[in-house]
């Protein structure tokens, strides 16, 4: 479904994405543009279709109709809400995620994640927060053009959340495009530049983050922010 590259300031364009399963419309003619180098937040209640849209944009799920144009899969990375961890050591898992890293670079990334003392520990024995950090550095180390993060700080403590946000900001400063979902309003306001609000598989509002949080235009957006 990937087609020609979009305009220079737009890294990814989705047009008319529709996905139905068992007679239920999960995504309904979703169209969106992701600005190059931006942090775009996909917001919405549980079941609104945020994760599904991320998966579609990343190419993990094929939509029934619609087109997506953007970087090739090799230039994209995704960090899942529940990291998928292999049965290897911490260092071995990082090598699997990003084979092009040499030993020194791998050690450096693990040191930055404060996991350098756990390089030989089984990755599946790490805590949830450590696994999430490992998944994140595995994605960042590959320096993708676009990074998808599905609720990257869900269930994380303050320190791990701070680490994730710091790494996201740093990657953003280096020009990486980030598309993420979050249920944390404070985090969304701290990080977000553009917001796409989803409701039952439809995009109901697209706006710059500051305007979305200060003066949302759609009634559902106001309602959503009241609940957040």
């Amino acid at each position, binding site marked *: 479904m990937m087609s020609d590259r979009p305009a220079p300031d737009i890294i990814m364009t989705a047009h008319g994405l529709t996905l139905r399963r068992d007679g239920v419309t999960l995504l309904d003619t979703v169209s969106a543009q992701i600005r190059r180098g931006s942090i775009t937040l996909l917001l919405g209640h549980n079941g609104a279709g945020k994760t599904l849209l991320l*998966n579609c944009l*990343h*190419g*993990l799920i094929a939509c029934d109709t619609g087109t997506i144009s953007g970087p090739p*899969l*090799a230039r*994209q*990375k*995704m960090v*899942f809400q529940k990291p*998928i961890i*292999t*049965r290897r050591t911490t260092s071995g898992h990082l090598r*699997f*995620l990003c084979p092009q890293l040499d030993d020194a670079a791998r050690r450096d990334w693990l040191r930055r994640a404060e996991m350098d003392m756990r390089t030989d520990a*089984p*990755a*599946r*024995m790490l805590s949830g927060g450590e696994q999430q950090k490992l998944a994140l550095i595995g994605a960042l180390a590959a320096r993708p053009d676009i990074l998808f993060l599905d609720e990257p700080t869900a269930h994380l403590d303050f320190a791990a959340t701070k680490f994730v946000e710091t790494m996201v900001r740093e990657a953003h400063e280096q020009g990486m495009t980030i598309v993420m979902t979050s249920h944390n309003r404070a985090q969304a306001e701290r990080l977000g530049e553009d917001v796409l609000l989803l409701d039952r598989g439809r995009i109901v509002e697209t706006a710059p983050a500051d305007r979305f949080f200060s003066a949302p235009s759609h009634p559902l957006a106001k309602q959503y922010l009241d609940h957040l």
Partner: protein
Amino acid sequence: MDILTPFQIALTLLASGDAELMGIIGLSLTVSLTAVLASLVIGLPMGALLATYRFPGRTALIVVSNTFLGMPPVVIGLLVYLLISRSGPLGFMGILYTPAAMMLAQTVLVLPISIALSRQAFESLNGEYAPLFQSLGLGRLDRIKALVFEARVALLTIGLACFGRAISEVGAVMIVGGNIRHSTRVMTTSIALATSMGELAFAMALGVVLLLVALTINIASQLLRHSFRNLGHDV
């Protein structure tokens, strides 16, 4: 003769390193280990392929493989006998009543176990890892390589299960090997023969060895599971 006497004679035979007994044990281990190795080399890629890809004839392959899973060893022995007997399609190989024929029969016997259990292991892991593999853009070969690596504990257990089945089997090797002294006589066929001839001590000695092999397999399996559980494997 009291029931303990055969055990005592058996231990004496084992301790003395009786040449014939050692030859039988050695041949049994060689035949079964070779058959297990061959079944894993053929069965693991087939299991991986069946678990990860849909292709025409896949269901038929699974049905055939599962059918052979419950096939009695004597029937397997008979099928292999028909294949390799002088008038059979593989008769030109001239391997009937040789250890090679026994290896072939045991390979056919344990191959379905190797395929079925590895397919199960790969299917489960593939379900878990598919989104990650897809996200990383892994090709077909890289996926199978990664799956085999991730399933390494399960595969060791599968190897042990195959070995347990092969070493304890009697019907197939009896038919295609002929139980020829100093040539194709293995532990199970020797036990059958010795028992029928009233040589209970000799039969018991081999029985004790088989028990020891089974015990070793179990201990090895438990140790492997334990050590890999410490590495975060769900075993």
